[in-house]
């Protein structure tokens, strides 16, 4: 079976074969012998690639697999040939139009809201103060516009990615 993996801006076509109890991967004309071993009670895999030893913890983000190890941190997008074929037929979803949303780039507690609906802001205008782990951070407008809506109140706890303010 063929798999397509994308790491950063590089794409790789990987053919996975098994034989004699071993797994081989062919990439760019080179063949690697891969021995993958799950370590119970952790999220870690020990991997031997032609004898070179690596250890990675794995986070499964659906199509995006995150690998963390001493050798670095990678996000790999992966699909197999069937999935890719199926996807090629479907049309890409259209870009969402509408108001611009300012989201939280970190989890935190809203300490202060500095703007009100209807207020005009410049790029860089502080919108609110978010605190986490003893640090206060100003959240600023990333474009000029008018405040349509403020989603949070002082004292609220927000997750990373939560909608804070909508600008039109």
């Amino acid at each position, binding site marked *: 079976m063929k798999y397509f993996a994308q790491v950063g801006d590089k794409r790789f076509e990987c053919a996975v074969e098994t034989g004699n109890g071993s797994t081989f991967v062919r990439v760019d004309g080179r063949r690697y012998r891969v021995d993958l071993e799950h370590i119970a009670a952790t999220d*870690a895999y020990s991997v031997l690639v032609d004898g070179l030893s690596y250890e990675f913890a794995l986070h499964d983000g659906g199509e995006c697999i995150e690998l963390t190890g001493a050798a*670095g941190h990678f996000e790999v997008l992966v699909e197999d040939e069937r999935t890719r074929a199926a996807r090629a037929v479907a049309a890409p979803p259209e870009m969402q139009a509408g108001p611009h949303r300012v989201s939280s780039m970190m989890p935190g507690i809203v300490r202060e809201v500095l703007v009100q609906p209807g207020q005009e802001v410049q790029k860089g205008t502080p919108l609110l103060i978010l605190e*986490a782990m*003893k*640090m206060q951070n100003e959240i600023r407008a990333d474009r000029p516009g008018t405040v349509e809506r403020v989603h949070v109140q002082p004292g609220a706890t927000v997750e990373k990615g939560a909608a804070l303010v909508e600008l039109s």
Partner: protein
Amino acid sequence: MSIEKVLIANRGEIALRVIRTLREMGIGSVAVFSEADRRELHVRAADEAYPIGPPAPAESYLCVDRLLEVAAKAGCDAVHPGYGFLSENAAFAQAVEDAGLIFIGPSARTIARAGDKLQARKTMEAAGVPVIPGGEVPEGDRKRLQAAAKACGLPVMLKAVGGGGGRGIRVVREPGELEASFERASSEAAEAFGNPAVYVERLLQSPRHIEFQILADQHGNTVHMGERECSIQRRHQKLLEETPSPLLDDSLRERMGAAAVAAAKAVDYRGAGTVEFLVDAQGEFFFLEMNTRIQVEHPITELCYGVDLVRLQIEVAAGAKLPFAQSDLRSKGHAIEVRLTAEDPEAGFLPVTGRVRALRLPQGPGVRVDSHLFPGQEISLHYDSMLGKIIAWGGTRDEAIDKLCRALVEMRVVGLKTCAPLLLALLRDERFRRGDVDTTYLESFVKDPQWSRPPQYGGLAAELPAVLTAVLYAHRRQGAARAVRSGHGGGGRRWLDAGRRDALR
């Protein structure tokens, strides 16, 4: 006086650090915990533990009344404040003493004199310790603000008079930013430290941050235990510290050490403390501030001097004489500490929260770990982002660096991003290895996109992650097929679990 049972008015790694020494000394330990901290290691490691309120520090770890209530209930005879929280709060030290307990630290009066930046500055000037040009500005006094800024010359730093540990500090480079920054600094200071006063000070160009460990007993003996180089900072928070400093020669060390002892004596210091200096490009040094508590980076001094500073704190607080004179103290080898934080350096050190899914801390020769991490731990946004400290000792600076690199390669914190990749890149950086660092070094280093570039492997380079993921994906597919046949099929994570079972064969 003897100490039999100590309340630790803190949490995290420093609470654990204090509990360890108490246990070694055969002294009882009493931990306190907020609702967010019931499962933390300091609660599990102490002899006793009592709840003190909701997660927000202002409602728990900063509640003097509740802390004293626990101390009374548990029958403590002393309080160790750790660092942060109430550790440099003179009123707390006074309240502890008023309750008839020993405060493991200097007197309330010393804390007040050292903690008030302005008064400390005057005291140090009088004691002949060099200080940086600057002055205090009360809340809302714009005229004084402008005058002070003019006297220092831009750029200046705005520092909360009641703050410490790098908190509540802002830099102003442009005249137009001055007033807005002042107001924000002032309101932050009011909220965090209960005092809106702000201090304006000349910002030295590319200085080095070098501090001296001080230890004093109640019998008039004061010694220093050499310096710690703490120039590697971001947002005025230290990230890496080492001793000895690659900058200092014996002559400068002796002069600064004498100034540090003079500074401590000037405020009647007792216990363990730290005198911080800035050293400019010309090798001139200025008193920066005094930290009247155990310092985060105290382990590097312990490793090079072969002492336990927390034990000495407790012994001195109980009235013991220092067991050594200045001439007995000699540093051996080199020690470096890095602070492991739940922060994403690639995203401007934004804090990261989450659950520690798996954990392997480094061990082995020359490596010390002081950390409150445990598998299953929830890292919440209520407290400091520091997860612990990895510390290495080596016969030489190069050996210490190599040991620390090895330790970081060995460590696995799975489940949330940490600054570990940055720490490793820093330790491997040529400029760092030369010892050529100042307080601006880290911020420029982080901007260099090179540091986060994944390393190269044998002949594998970039295809390694692709190869791994393909095999993993193939395993999963097989596992999923098998799971469906055996009636356990499902979407999402199921095929991952199946893949694992498969890989387990």
